[in-house]
């Protein structure tokens, strides 16, 4: 495979993934050597170094990923921060709703329902004392179980957990 062509495929793979992809996995999929992949990565880095690009390659152990360049962060923030705010309040609302109707529930279960990371939303709800930790699930890793607090029930005018129904 030609170097230029391989570079394009690697860029496409990293773009699609969003997450880090291992060098070996890329080499295998391209049916080529690890060395050629590394050479492509080097060439891509040279390419991305040009000011007309806002992305770059970051290495994470034996894997690589695409990220934005740190120097354009202020612009990214300006455009996305207002969206993050509404996204986060939506995330908090959805997360609270899931905890309310599915309690006790683990973070992993919430994330599988929402399909996205809930770290931030959970910590906000904990901070506001709307949810609390309620024991741990007895499976490997013993994940924390979350449930609503009495304060939360009170806030929504509910007497007890038994009043929670989705009809």
């Amino acid at each position, binding site marked *: 495979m030609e170097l230029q062509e391989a570079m394009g495929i690697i860029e*496409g793979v990293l*773009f*699609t993934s*969003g997450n880090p992809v291992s060098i070996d996995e890329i080499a295998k999929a391209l049916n080529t050597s690890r060395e050629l992949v590394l050479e492509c990565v080097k060439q891509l880095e040279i390419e991305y170094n040009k000011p007309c690009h806002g992305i770059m390659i970051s290495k994470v152990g034996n894997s690589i990923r695409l990220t*934005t360049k740190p120097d354009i962060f202020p612009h990214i*923030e300006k455009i*996305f*921060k207002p*969206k*993050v*705010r509404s*996204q*986060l*309040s939506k*995330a*908090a*609302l*959805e997360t*609270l*709703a*899931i905890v*309310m*109707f599915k309690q006790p529930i683990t973070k992993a279960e919430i994330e599988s*329902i*929402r*399909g*996205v*990371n809930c*770290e*931030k*939303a959970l910590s*906000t709800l904990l901070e*506001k004392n*709307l949810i609390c930790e309620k024991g741990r699930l007895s499976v490997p890793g013993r994940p924390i179980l979350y449930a609503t607090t009495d304060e939360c029930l009170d806030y*929504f*005018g*509910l007497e007890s957990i038994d009043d929670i129904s*989705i009809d």
Partner: protein
Amino acid sequence: MALNVKIDTFEGPFDLLFHLIEKNQIDIYDIPIAELTEQYLDYIDKITENQLDLASEFLVMAATLLSIKSKMLLPSMPKQDVESELAVAEDDGVDPRRELMQKLLEYKKFKEIAMLLKKKEEKEELVFKKPPEDLSSMWTDDIPLAEITFEDLKSAFKSVMGKKKPEEKVSKITKDPMPLSRKVIEVYQKLRQKSKIFFSRLFDKKTPKLEIITTFLAVLELVKMKRINAVQEEQFGEIVLTCREV
């Protein structure tokens, strides 16, 4: 005429009409109805009897075409004065083809959109998109959660659960429902005891659909046997069952 086109390759009567219109380069705004009707009927003839299910929709259109054709043959009313002309224009003066033309034009519009969507679908299939970056760390301030109600939580829950990909369908295998003859006896016995009962009380939420149907059939059977009366006051209302004196 090329009759090697099978009828079931058409999406419906409009689709077939379109095929004919395009093939014959007919002006939609001035359809030669006699000619079109004849060609349409030729196609319909190809539908064999065992395709009758499919045919019904095509037959309705055939009837419509014939009706338009006959209206076109009627002599137009002589125009006496302006007043009656105006009155006539509302009704009989309208071109009998007008309604069909409008429907065809509307269908044509959506057929074209469907083709556009097809192209978009094909294009989209070959590209991959990227998931949005997780930006939650960008926000360090307090997250507003004011003014939400229990109703908001309920609808948020419903929409988030609704978004979940449908899980693999698990079909339930239920027991054979009670045979009709036994259901007839069961319903009749219940009515003998209570003399009056709502149909909806003969089963509960957990009753399988098939058994509800059997129950309904049992009620019909009992009505036929003149053992009970069934009254429904309004559409979709309760059916009240009463026992008849024997």
